[in-house]
């Protein structure tokens, strides 16, 4: 008998879609309710007591709750979400209301789950976010319900397609809009980077950062749903040259924002090194479709070359060449090794090629570990690489230009911004060149490419060569910036991380590689309390991305999705029917 009663829940669950569908006429009400709940949640206390690590940010704790309307931090984000939801619910002229509501709902859910979970874990139980010792704090739960109601409303209502906004203005007006957008972007990047602070005082950096990221996701999702992102994108396309210059200037202006401290400059420089390397890898993997599992070796080769040619005391070579020359030599030598590693592509394809590149990567690491030829320092590394100097200024110095004082490390930051810009320019030009088309043809179907007269061998080796040169350049800067080069920075796991950056961001796209590299290198910076779990989560993330979003965060629009299944998988097993039959004897 018990068995039958236990079986009941699924039976109840079955007609649920009907229940949801019955709500259809009330989506507007639902949206209003969701918005109001979100607002309410943001004004309620979130924590019932002061946590051990100190009060939770944004005055979330009951005791600190003196001015409920002076919202800041994640509570402010929720206030904005709530108001936006109510506005979207009531103003029916807004296009794609349900889609916007969905983004707002997901954002609200994410923000409340992240903060609620954090407080629960830090506070040692659900009491921390509900009621404990006479205090009540249901903020997280109310906001979560608000978010769920919003998401539900969008689920019940029909999701509209993303509208296309065709607004066109006079050129100067559009330029002005772009300027505003890019300035906002700059401030946003600075805010994300610095959110939660750093060091011993920033106990909740992880939570604040994640929550900010979630809020940003919801916010951008809503803008995208309203068609505004698409419109801005179109603006970019219309004024590409202007926008690119503006972006470059904006990137160079980052030290003027709240991120202008030595610490954040170092973080940003490291991100830059990996972003540049990831873009290089994106040429090999994203454009030419050749999986390279030993790519970080080229970064390493560049770094070791620079270390040896820049007068480090520990270097066996002991000459000191000017930095620009060092960069060129580093790139050339990395490129030569790239061509060597790439040469098996003449005979080996697919996953076997991936293994060949992995083997080369391992040979590099082992050799470097054994201080091959006295060039790599082995386990002692090569320390004491002098900073880059230009016009008598060491690049590790702080800078003062008139009234503006810039922190230490800013010059390396400028250098890396220029490098990333250069690498992006190379990538963009290659992608739309003859060579780029040849790569894409090879990626899509190598035999067909050959049949069309593409000399696939040299073209593939060129992909490795160019990718390696770019990594070599990045390596040269990396060596000077960190002042110490050790083989440990170039292990297999680093190659996997770079690959993950490319995959996460979206193969074959520039913003994808930059975004992927940024996320993968900021997250560990922010989530120090999870440092132990970093690689574990990272491995799981790779699996999940491949399963649920193989095209990455910024998919390549021009690419016939190599990593996405054909739109209709009617074949219930086996390979794709067409190829199978073609192969059958």
């Amino acid at each position: 008998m018990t068995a039958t009663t236990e079986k009941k829940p699924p039976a109840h669950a079955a007609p649920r879609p009907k229940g949801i569908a019955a709500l259809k006429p009330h989506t507007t009400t639902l949206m209003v309710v969701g918005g109001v709940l979100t607002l309410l949640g943001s004004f309620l206390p979130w924590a019932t007591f002061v946590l051990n690590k100190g009060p939770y940010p944004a005055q979330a704790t009951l005791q600190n709750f003196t001015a409920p309307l002076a919202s800041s931090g994640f509570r402010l984000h929720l206030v904005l979400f709530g108001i936006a939801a109510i506005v979207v619910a009531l103003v029916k002229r807004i296009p794609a209301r349900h889609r916007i509501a969905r983004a707002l709902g997901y954002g609200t859910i994410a923000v409340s789950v992240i903060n609620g979970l954090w407080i629960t874990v830090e506070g040692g139980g659900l009491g921390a976010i509900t009621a404990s010792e006479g205090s009540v704090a249901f903020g997280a739960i109310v906001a979560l319900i608000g978010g769920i109601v919003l998401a539900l409303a969008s689920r019940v209502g029909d999701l509209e397609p993303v509208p296309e906004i065709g607004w066109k203005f006079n050129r100067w007006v559009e330029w002005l809009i772009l300027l505003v957008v890019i300035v906002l972007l700059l401030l946003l990047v600075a805010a994300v980077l610095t959110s939660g602070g750093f060091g011993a005082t920033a106990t909740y950096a992880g939570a604040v950062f994640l929550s900010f990221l979630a809020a940003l996701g919801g916010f951008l999702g809503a803008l995208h749903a309203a068609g505004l992102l698409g419109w801005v994108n179109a603006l970019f396309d219309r004024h590409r040259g202007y926008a690119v210059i503006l972006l470059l200037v904006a990137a160079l202006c980052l030290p003027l924002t709240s991120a202008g401290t030595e610490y954040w400059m170092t973080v940003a420089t490291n991100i830059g090194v990996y972003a540049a390397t990831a873009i290089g890898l994106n040429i090999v993997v994203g454009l030419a479709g050749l999986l390279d599992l030993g790519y970080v070796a080229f970064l390493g080769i560049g770094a070791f070359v620079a270390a040896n040619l820049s007068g480090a005391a520990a270097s066996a070579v002991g000459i000191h060449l000017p930095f620009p020359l060092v960069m060129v030599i580093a790139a050339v030598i990395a490129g030569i090794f790239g061509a060597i590693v790439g040469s098996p592509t003449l005979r080996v394809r697919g996953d076997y090629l991936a293994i060949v590149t992995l083997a080369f990567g391992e040979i590099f690491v082992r050799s470097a570990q054994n201080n091959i030829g006295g060039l790599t320092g082995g386990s002692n590394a090569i320390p004491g690489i002098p900073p880059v100097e230009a016009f008598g200024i060491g690049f590790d110095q702080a800078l003062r230009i008139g009234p503006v004082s810039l922190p230490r490390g800013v010059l390396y930051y400028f250098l890396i911004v220029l490098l990333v810009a250069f690498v992006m320019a190379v990538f963009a030009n290659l992608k739309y060149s003859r060579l780029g088309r040849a790569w894409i043809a090879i990626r899509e179907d190598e035999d067909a490419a050959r049949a069309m007269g593409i000399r696939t061998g040299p073209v593939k080796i060129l992909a490795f060569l160019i990718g390696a040169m770019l990594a070599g350049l990045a390596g040269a800067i990396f060596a000077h910036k960190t002042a110490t080069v050790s083989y440990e920075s170039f292990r297999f796991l680093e190659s996997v991380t770079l690959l993950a950056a490319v995959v996460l961001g979206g193969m074959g796209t520039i913003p994808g590689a930059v975004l992927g590299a940024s996320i993968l290198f900021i997250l560990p910076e922010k989530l120090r309390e999870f440092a132990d779990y970093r690689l574990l989560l990272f491995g799981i993330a790779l699996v999940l991305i491949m399963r649920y979003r193989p095209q990455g965060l910024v998919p390549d629009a021009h690419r016939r999705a190599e990593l996405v299944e054909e739109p209709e998988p009617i074949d219930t097993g086996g390979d794709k029917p067409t190829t199978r039959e073609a192969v059958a004897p």
Partner: protein
Amino acid sequence: MSILMSQIVNGLILGSLIGLIALGYTMVYGIIQLINFAHGEVFMVGAYGAVGTATFVLPTAVTTQWWFLLPIMIVIGALVSMVVAILMERFAYRPLRNAPRLAPLITALGVSVALQEAVRVFYPEATAAIPFPSIFIPGALVLPIGDGVPIQYSGILIVVVALVLAFALNTFVEQTRLGRAMRATAQDRDVARLMGINPDRVIVLTFALGGALAGVAGVLYGNFYNFINIDMGFQNGIFAFTAAVLGGIGNIRGAVVGGLAIGLIKSLAGQYLPGGGAYDYVWIFVVLIAVLVFRPQGFFGETERVRA
């Protein structure tokens, strides 16, 4: 002379282990053309599972008797690895069965990293190497060559178990109904379905068998070297993959012979080639590249291959 002999002995012992791991690579590649990068970690997990059970679960009375403990640990190692391999297939690879080839390979990398890290994070003190109990007759048989060539009994155990299991596996694949179904699925999955074979089950079986063998290898490895660490999967996994390619991927006998060859190359190169022991890994990677470039079909004829 006795140095050469003992290097050969070491090579054969390591080679038998690698061959045992290589069987999993070769079978999985034969059937779904996936380089199951995480297979090395399956081997590692088996060793940790067995040692964890012995340390934290089994009563000490049991752990003092090797003839009792050895079979228990082997079975536990095999079970742990098998379960991990099955879960991996089910949740990571199966959803990508029809996806382009890069996707499962990247997934395999992710699984590999995740498994290794899971052990590092959740197994007590796994950040460093942990001792593995000696669960077989200690000591060595000394061959009367030169100054005497010792062969550890635990090493003999490895060679014997590896050969027996490889032989059993070969018999299973060649002679039984399920083995036939495996070969059929490897050759032509669609037609196998027309024969009434459920490819999903055959593929799970393949992962399970390969996983179990890797788990056994993990326990034998720990017993022989007396220490295990979380890197052992990656290194030996690459060796095993090299062995599988060397023997002709999809070929069971080839995997064993390839494993022995890799074991010998490693120990002899470490002894006699420039650079010595510090570079023995490098030589294996050189062999791997050379084989993939010049003879990707391996050194054993096409006829016995399981692969279509």
